């Protein structure tokens, strides 16, 4: 009898406390920001900028701890999330690698192990060539690759990741044939291009900004539906908004963008999800965030909930087509 009462009492308390928590969920412990890249990379800057904004504007009561788990193209962070299922005190910072990686490598997690919270920005991709190269525009570059199949070296970051996927997409859409050479990261590929060891790369604006300013390399076109936001000229009298879109330049690829995303381990309470989504929304409204987006030449766009899931679905579908054609899929 006493036993039964205890159980009922316990159940009641649990219910009550859940109800109380439901009213307004708040982190009770320090929140871990798990970054799916090494220190100093694009994803790392993304996470640390958000950390700095939350701390500066006091958007959350609990302190933030940033952890870098970037090995295996970020797989380390996602497997870590799987191991901490249901923990509402861990956020994972990534790109589209969360849902694309399991298709090309046999890993101990699936995209179901992570719950999407929001995307905060879209990073652009451009075709860059050496400043003194013979290619005047995207078309002449593609034609050169068609004339010498397999001879034009195209540098990129990592293997079967966003860069190689884009190069494969260009090949499939135009019939050109490049020699893809993978390097460790965007910075390294930028230097290889400036040194003339590869003919082109598809770096994000931020990864090649320094080299462009220095006049070592120049952009041919950007894989975005519309031209990038303007601003001061970067090199000579050319600014970001002077770069034609690839569609304008005659490359039949409408858009190829990489989302900067935030995830949580699957199974966290709905109200915790709402709390973080709200928090990140507030972050994107601060002047510091706008400055970060402008400085890194990304496109600021906040996606959450169903909208974000739609985006993921489409992006995954497009990538899968490329993977299938290249024979990269793993079972």
């Amino acid at each position, binding site marked *: 009898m006493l036993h039964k009462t205890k159980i009922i009492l316990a159940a009641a308390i649990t219910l009550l406390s859940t109800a109380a928590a439901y009213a307004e969920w708040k982190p009770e412990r320090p929140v871990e920001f798990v970054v799916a890249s*090494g*220190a100093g990379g694009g994803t790392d800057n993304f996470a640390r900028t958000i950390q700095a904004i939350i701390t500066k504007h006091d958007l959350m009561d609990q302190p933030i701890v*940033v952890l870098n788990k970037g090995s295996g193209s970020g797989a380390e962070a996602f497997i870590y999330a799987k191991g901490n299922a249901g923990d509402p005190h861990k956020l994972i910072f990534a790109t589209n690698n969360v849902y694309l990686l399991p298709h090309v490598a046999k890993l101990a997690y699936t995209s179901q192990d992570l719950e999407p919270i929001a995307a905060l920005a879209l990073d652009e991709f451009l075709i860059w060539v050496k400043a003194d190269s013979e290619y005047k525009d995207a078309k002449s570059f593609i034609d050169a690759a068609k004339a010498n199949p397999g001879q034009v070296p195209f540098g990129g970051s990592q*293997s*079967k990741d966003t860069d190689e996927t884009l190069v494969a997409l260009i090949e499939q859409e135009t019939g050109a044939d490049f020699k893809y*050479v993978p390097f460790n990261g965007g910075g390294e590929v930028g230097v*290889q291009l400036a040194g003339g060891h590869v003919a082109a790369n598809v770096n994000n604006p931020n990864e090649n900004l320094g080299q462009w*300013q220095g006049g070592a390399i120049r952009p041919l076109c950007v894989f975005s539906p519309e031209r990038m936001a303007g601003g001061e000229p970067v090199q000579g009298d050319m600014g970001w908004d002077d770069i034609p879109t690839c569609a304008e330049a005659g490359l039949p690829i409408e858009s190829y963008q990489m989302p900067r995303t935030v995830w949580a381990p699957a199974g966290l309470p709905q109200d915790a999800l709402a709390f973080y989504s709200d928090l990140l929304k507030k972050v994107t409204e601060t002047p510091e965030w706008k400055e970060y987006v402008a400085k890194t030449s990304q496109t600021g766009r906040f996606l959450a909930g169903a909208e974000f899931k739609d985006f993921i679905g489409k992006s995954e579908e497009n990538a899968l087509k490329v993977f299938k054609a290249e024979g990269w899929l793993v079972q």
Partner: protein
Amino acid sequence: MENFGLLLDGFQIALTPSHIAIMVVGVLLGLVVGVLPGLGAPNGVSLLIPLTFSMEPVSAIILLASMYWGALFGGSTTSILFNIPGEPSSVATTFDGYPMARDGQATRALTLAFMSAGIGALVGVIVITLLSSWAAEFALRFGAPEYFAVYFLAFCAFIGMGSAAPAKTAVSLLLGLALSSVGMDTITGSLRLTFGISELIGGISFLVVVIGLFGIGEILITIQHGLKFRGVSSRVDLRDVFRTIAELPRYYATLIRSCLVGTWMGITPGGPTAASFMSYGIARQWSRRGKPFGTGRPEGIIAPETADHSAGTCAMLPMLALGVPSSATAAVMMGGLMIWGLTPGPMLFTTKPDFVWGLIASMYVANIVGVILVLATVPMFAALLRIPFAIIGPMIVAVCFVGAYTVSSATFDLWLVLAFGIVGYVFNKLQYPIAPLVLAMVLGHKAENAFHQSMIMSDGSVLVFWSNPLVGSIITLALALVAVPQLVRFATRLRRTEVDEPLVK
């Protein structure tokens, strides 16, 4: 001499009282994180970055860079005292530094290390000052074949004439290469040697292996040799510091050679770790007399330390001028640069001369400040060895495990430390050399990537390594470093049989 004027402007920025105070604080903080392997320089620097948001960029970079120098000094301290390298680049310092400290000459070992580190760093900064514009251009000439050639050169310089049996060296080297290939391959994107264990996807961390091999391995050997509950009776005297400084000029040849190796490896993308190994290997090849290396030879400390610091300093140049971080710590500092609104790249030198030359001037000052500070702490650190093993032993074990855990906050790494501790013990008992394994782990993966990239570019032709004078001469030099000692040995043997008298009297 335009650089000279800019440097003088830089000194005006670096030599303000507030900046000198920042350097002292930075070096001391760095020393603390360097000595406690639980923190490490990259973590220490990233902890400090949020504090720098409100500072002027030049003050912020001076703070972070000073902390980096301090951490490098601290890393050598633990290598020498406890055989635990705090930084990958101070592994080679353990080979002779630790035996010398065990001999009761901890003060001498530490002073030699710090002084040669300071000299190496100063030479590095001078090279940066004189060659800044040229060196950045030069680094651009390094494509995949050239990268491979530089790593290959480091391998050959170190392996060239090992003292251990060639077969045992080969076993150790190949084991290291196998370990370095664990995890996700950059070039193919496939997983290798992970056996379905998720923890191995990221590969085996070099630092974890080294902490196990050296730290835990050493403890096991100490225990087997009979537990001595007394500490080493090391003399602790500030006069010893000065006496050691006075003996430094005797090793001028080693110093000059190591500076050359260091600056070369710093400007080319070889990096400080490769530089320290290469310098140690060359010093060993050149030594003719005296007790063998690995038993506490002063040159065995001077060579890696000088090369490590001159390379580490020179490597700041590619970071600023090209935006390529040379180490994990440099990567964190670069992240900081971007947060402060500066873009590393060729334009940084023209658009922000105050920042760049302020930093370069601060490297002169901070290294001198650093050497003075660490020399003052030598007696204190040397006294640590007097503590009985019964107390310090468990502390070292704890430090090893904490240090390994913080590399990537993974419990799996603790098992690795234990496993490699046993490997280190077995290697020692069977007289297998550990150094080739360590070197292969540091450079193996990078060399493999560069080789693979070269092969993709050349469609599989090895001739790409002789495709231009730069790469051709590096590769040829590397091959000569391996071949010449063998030929000399062969010739000596021939002559010996002819004349029938020993060469050495």
